[in-house]
């Protein structure tokens, strides 16, 4: 751990956040290789209409950002987040609506200080094992000595998070979340504070070693599906798919490496403002829009294949704009009190 690598990295601007650059490429705007069998025709069709939406949203955002150079929480900003944050404003908006910007201001130099201190060798070993296994298909995370490689920043942020949050340490899944944050934030220290805010304030207990919160959340998912569509719920129960296994990766990776990148970022636009309810909305929506496929399953294996193939299902999840609209309409109302009550009931199920 030499000190010259400790300063937070300012990434070069060749990390383009604008999807329009990628229309014809096998690599998307965030450096991800497109999956095998990627449906370019549908994607191009979607993008041609989405670009218009993006341009409109960009103009609206610019008009509210221009006044103060920043944003704070308000009904208007919440509505704007649901409609999508343009790539150029995303880092600033995420930092502000999540509360990470304030934390960073209140703790100047803390990140560098953590990285300068001694590391717990066990934590280093655990984290190191996953660095080469995080988005290897992304050009910025591929094993390389390239100066632009984000492998070292990924290691730094995960180790710093582990030291600052000794109760959580490191949980597999955090590697994918931090990696995607780095691709968007283009700044190591900001990614650190955003992750710190996420695990302490937005999704408290999610990454705890006992996994209780993550198990409860999946049982809540099951109950929400039961309320919204009893027929589908009992079908999934008959297929003997445990709710507890449906969404571990969904909830721990916050849909990174599960859904297409642009869709994940649109989910995060809402998540940093509104919290874990958003993840439940997305999970319920995924189950509901795949109803026909689940209903056709005759056994457990077929059901797991449906779950595996969600990322390849271009029509329903690639159109991120339509998908995000669906998460607010399909699961219907989602009162906070109801979720709280369900969490309380579900905790008894898993013990």
């Amino acid at each position: 751990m030499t000190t010259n690598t400790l300063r937070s990295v300012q990434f070069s601007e060749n990390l383009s956040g604008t999807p329009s650059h990628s229309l014809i490429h096998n690599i998307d705007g965030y450096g991800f290789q497109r999956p095998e069998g990627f449906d370019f025709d549908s994607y191009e069709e979607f993008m041609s209409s989405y670009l218009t939406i993006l341009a409109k949203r960009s103009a609206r955002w610019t008009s509210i950002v221009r006044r103060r150079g920043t944003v704070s929480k308000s009904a208007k900003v919440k509505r704007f987040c649901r409609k999508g944050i343009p790539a150029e404003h995303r880092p600033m908006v995420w930092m502000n609506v999540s509360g990470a910007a304030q934390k960073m201001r209140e703790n100047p130099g803390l990140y560098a200080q953590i990285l300068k201190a001694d590391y717990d060798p066990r934590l280093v070993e655990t984290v190191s094992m996953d660095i080469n296994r995080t988005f290897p298909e992304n050009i910025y995370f591929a094993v390389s000595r390239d100066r632009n490689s984000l492998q070292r920043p990924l290691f730094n942020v995960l180790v710093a998070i582990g030291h600052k949050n000794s109760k959580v340490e490191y949980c597999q899944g955090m590697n994918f979340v931090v990696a995607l944050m780095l691709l968007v934030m283009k700044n190591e220290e900001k990614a650190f504070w955003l992750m710190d805010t996420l695990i302490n304030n937005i999704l408290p207990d999610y990454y705890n070693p006992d996994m209780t919160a993550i198990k409860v959340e999946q049982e809540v998912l099951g109950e929400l599906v039961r309320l919204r569509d009893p027929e589908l719920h009992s079908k999934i129960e008959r297929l003997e798919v445990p709710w507890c296994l449906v969404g571990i990766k969904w909830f721990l990776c916050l849909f990174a490496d599960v859904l297409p990148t642009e869709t994940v970022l649109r989910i995060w636009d809402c998540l940093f403002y509104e919290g874990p309810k958003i993840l439940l909305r997305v999970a319920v929506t995924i189950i509901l829009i795949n109803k026909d496929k689940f209903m056709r399953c005759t056994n457990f294996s077929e059901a797991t294949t449906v779950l595996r193939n969600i990322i390849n299902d271009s029509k329903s999840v690639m159109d991120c704009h339509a998908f995000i609209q669906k998460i607010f309409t399909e699961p219907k109302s989602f009162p906070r009190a109801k979720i709280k009550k369900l969490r309380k009931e579900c905790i008894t199920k898993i013990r």
Partner: protein
Amino acid sequence: MKDSNSSTKDSHPPNGFARKGSSTSTEVFDNSCKVMLIGDSGSGKTCLLVRFKDGAFLSGSFISTVGIDFRNKVVDVDGTKVKLQIWDTAGQERFRSITKAYYRDANALLLLYDVTNKTSFDNIRAWLAEINEYAQEDVVIMLLGNKADMAAERVIRREEGEKLAKDHNVAFMETSAKTGMNVDLAFMAVARDLKMKKTRKPSDPSFNVAEYVTKEQQTSGCCGS
């Protein structure tokens, strides 16, 4: 030694195999065989599975498994189709609080360590203790020393793995997801065991998976054993 089933390659299965409701030997088992891959993080569970499933080695392009991943493969055991439902689990200790609940329904557990990582080997006893607590009595357990191709980095000798397996009365092999050594055998032995359990008549000799893999396996290197 007991090769009672390899002589029947025709349409008549050994031991007068006939399942409830099935009339021909080529019919797929109505119940599939659940195999779980367990072992420390980085021991090569996903790579072993991909090698078996797709015959490929994921050098530098595989990701850490978060939670559980499922794959299915139908294999042929002497003319009978056996459907393997394979559960690939996350190795990190905290995930065991989720995965161990499912040992109970597993027909087979493939327990991996990495021959180049001493900790992963030292943890095998703890894994076995947990298996004893949660799995069924008749579950097939196979201890696999993976990455056997990495001769220069090896820190666990083959004999150490063999002894540990013997002490705990489980089957043992060294494997390499990279070269493919013994990978198919590990899964096929499990499929064979399940098929034998389903079709064996009380008078038939029982199938011993440990003896079977001892006889069939390859060993690594020129002076492997």
